[in-house]
Structures are given as C-alpha cells and as structure tokens.
C-alpha cells in the first residue's frame, strides 16, 4: 500500500495499522499533526485526505488523522495550499477559543468520530 496515515489518535492506530502503515504521534497536538504533514509534503509526499474534519471545527476535537502517499514525488502544490489554508484555519479557531480539556469518555467519542471519517474512505480503497 502506497499510503501512510499520520495520526495522534490511538484508535486509528489500533484499527487501521494492519491495513495501512500508521505513524502514531501520541504527543502531537491537532496543529502539530497538520504541521508535520505540511513538512512531509515539502519533502515530496502527496496529500491524500483533506486535513479538516467535516462538521467538527479544529478547536472542538483534539484528534487528527491524515493520509499521505509514501512515495515521494514532485512537490504537491495543491496539497501544500490545502494544508497551509487548514493550518491557518485551525490556528484561527484555536487562538480564539482553545480546545477544551475533555474527560476520557468524551475523548473516546472524538477518537471514534475521527476514526470513522478515515475508516469509510480507507475501507473503500479508492483508486488514486
């Protein structure tokens, strides 16, 4: 599989690592995951999933999982523009109102939603 998942969500690592190599960066914040992916794009990896999640705003969930290509190619300019816009957007939300300190039960619900957003796409193994 020519894809890799970058995540700070242990549930994604536990459920998907067997199918797709997953880099579990447990100490990374939402923004740090985005920045890590931005750096990977600069190194030639291609952005495969959109960095922002559906209806959840960046200051509502602490979890973020993004799929990038393993193979390094020419700079993915479109992906770079999307990740930069996403970082700007996430910073705007988080500086306005930081992500709350949730209890473990709520954190688990957010892990589950983050997993589901990826799982649906990964299970269908879209042709890229």
């Amino acid at each position, binding site marked *: 599989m020519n894809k890799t998942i970058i995540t700070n969500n242990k549930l994604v690592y536990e459920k998907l690592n067997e199918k797709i190599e997953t880099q579990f960066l447990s100490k990374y914040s939402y923004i740090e995951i985005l920045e890590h992916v931005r750096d990977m794009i600069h190194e030639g990896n291609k*952005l*495969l*999933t*959109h960095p*922002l*999640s*559906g*209806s*959840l*705003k*960046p200051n*509502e969930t602490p979890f973020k999982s993004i*799929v990038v290509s393993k193979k390094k190619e020419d700079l993915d300019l479109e*992906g770079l523009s*999307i990740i930069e*816009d*996403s970082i*700007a*957007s996430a910073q*705007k*939300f988080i500086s*306005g*109102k930081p992500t*709350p300190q*949730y*209890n473990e*039960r*709520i954190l*688990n*619900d*957010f892990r*589950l*939603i983050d997993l*589901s*957003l*990826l*799982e*649906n*796409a990964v299970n269908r193994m*879209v*042709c*890229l």
Partner: protein
Amino acid sequence: MRLELGKIFIKDVQFGESTKVENGTLYVNKQELIDIAMEDDRIINATIELARSGESVRIAPVKDVIEPRVKVEGEGNIFPGVISKVKTVGSGRTHALVGANIVTAGKIVGFQEGIIDMSGPGAEYTPFSKTYNVCVVVEPKEGIETHAYEEAARLAGLKIGAYVGNAGKDVEPDEVVVYETKPLLEQVAQYPNLPKVGYIHMLQSQGLLHDTYYYGVDAKEIVPTFMYPTEIMDGAIVSGNCVAPCDKVTTFHHLNNPVIEDLYKRHGKDLNFIGVILTNENVFLADKERSSDMVGKFVEFLGLDGVLITEEGYGNPDTDLMMNCKKATKAGAKVVLITDEFPGRDGKSQSLADATHEASALVSCGNGNIIVELPPMKKVIGTLDYVETMIGGYEGSLRPDGSIEAEIQIIIASTIANGYNKLTARNY
C-alpha cells in the same frame, strides 16, 4: 415531473385519543408514537412531549427535525428507500402539516447536538421556535454502538414523521402549490429566452454522524447525479448528520429547501430552473476531484447559464465548494455560493477554509462564532447535561440558574448554509 404540495397549516398541537388534524390543530396519541419508537429494540425508552411556539421551553440535545408529510397521489411514499419501498417520488400530490414538526432528541455522543428555544432571544435564531413540535426523546440500550443508536434515533423520527403525516391524508389543504420541472429538452424549450439555472446541492457525507442519504443510499457512495427538484419534497433526501447544530441541514430543511423554493418562485419569470445536481463531500481528495469533475460535466451537458451552490459543514467541505465553483465556472456558468461563515468572534479572520479566484459572488448566512445569552427556560425537554460540550458551548456556558452563554453555533440551524435563516453579512 409535477408535484402538487397541499399545505395544511397547523396552529396548535395537543395530545388526543387518536392522531388526527382538526381545524388546524394536530392531535397526537402519545402511546402510538412511543410504540413506533420502541419497535426498534436498540431503543429502551421513548418519551413524547409537546413544545409550542412562544412557550418557556428549551429542547436539547436535538438530533433531527422532520415535517410530517404524506403521499396522497402518485408513485412511492415519503422517505423512499429508508422507511418505504424504493420508488421515484416527486410527482402527484403530497400533503404537508406546515407548522408542525417532529423533533428527535437524546444523547448519542459526549459532545452533542444543539438547542431549540421556543421563546426568548435564542428563539430568533431557529425556525423551529415558530412551530408546534412533537418531541421524541429516545434512550439507547446499554452498550450499543454510537452508529447503531444514531440510526435507531433517525429511523424513529422518520417513522413518526410519516405516521403523523398520514393524519393529513384526507384533510383539505389550506393552500396548494404546484411545482413542475419538465424533461430537459422540453424544459429548455418552454422558456427559450430565459437563463438556464441549476442548483448544485452538496450533501454532507464524511462518516459517522456526518451522513446524508439519497433514496436510502449513503451519499458518500454516490457519484454526482441529477435530481428533479420535487423529489426532495417527498423525502428523497434524509439527514443523518448530527454533530454541528448551526449549519446542520435537518430533514425538515431538505423537505423545505429554500434554494429550490425560491428558484421555483422565479421559474418562468426571470429564469428557467432546470434542476438539481446532487453531489457529496468526501474525505479523500481523489473523491473530491472525481465528484467536482462530474459536477462540472453536468453543468456543461445541461447547458446551464448560472448555478447556485450550497454546502453543509465547515472546513473540509469548503474545498469541495471551491472545486465545484471553479469547475462550474469553467463549464460556462455564472456561479453564486451560499454558505455560513466562521471568521472568529470579531469577524476579522478568513470566513472559509478554502478559496478560489472564481468564487466572486457569495451569499452569507451569518457568522457562527457570535456569542449569545440564553435566559433560563421553565421547562427542559431532553437534558442540559451536555451544554458545555456541545459545539458552540464551553466551560462555564451553563450557569446554575439554567441560563446559557454560548456561540450561536449551539442553536439548531442558526447559520444554516442554505439560507433558511435570518442572518447574513454584507459588504459596505
């Protein structure tokens, strides 16, 4: 395709011995509705409560809102492929109990859906404070998975919507509105001198609690398709999205899509409304590329001169919105976007997470980050336990007296991105 929509105006709701409509009052038999909800063994308890416009009532956490409707003539039934057999709907005659709604409430996940206030300042932000609501509060079986509970709650609301709608089957409507869209070549020929306008309707389709269904098909599995606008009025599209209150497109909003309504009002006058291009909002960039390519292809094939585009959600869907805008423009149409904005509390930051040069005309449905004060209400239907973890709520949002300070994001449909609200923003 031609649909007569018979509107029965509801001016009150009461419990009664049978479920019926009499002189503008909707009577519901409580036990019948509980029995329908309890048919699903994933639900262990259901309660029914009424909330009338103007009352001191707060409903939370709200999942979906459904206007009761019934097919009177024509093929198929309401919510085809979901609670009735798959059959193309949108023609014949349908009756709607306008002013009555089924509101489903109950806990699904730790961060929760939003609030409807039936009176006070919060009531100004939601259309459901003006209606007579039959609230269905459901409780799940212990240990059930989130997605299974979401499905059970969704189906209970739809089934009760159809059951209550049936009470309007033999009632003479107060008003009948006729909507008609002909097959493409005939439609183009009917008003050859008017600009051909289409509507690109983007359905939220990213995953758990972020889903929408078209004839029962999960929208993430569709490729863009063409829909006669009247199909939506019979429930061809139902909402399964329940994490963002302010810009959630409820099933009510699908049945009463304001873009479709307004395009029909001007159909034959200053534009020729050709139809709806349905598309999705997926997670993979490759899916976005494929779907927006196909949207562009439809715009070209249908020969549209202009399109309106609406989205559901913030962030990820903004990229679909911009890709659709770019490709519809390239296909030869003038494009107007309709969406809400999240530019921060001072309104100074970027409103959307993506942009393109072609996005030169946009109708704003308001800023979701604005703070609102909601005074306490005498009665709560559901629970306020989750206010501080609701989208738009924060630590300290819920005060001991039951009053709430939160972003207007917390109110159901306050900045809904199809324009079924009263907020906007203008350039001066």
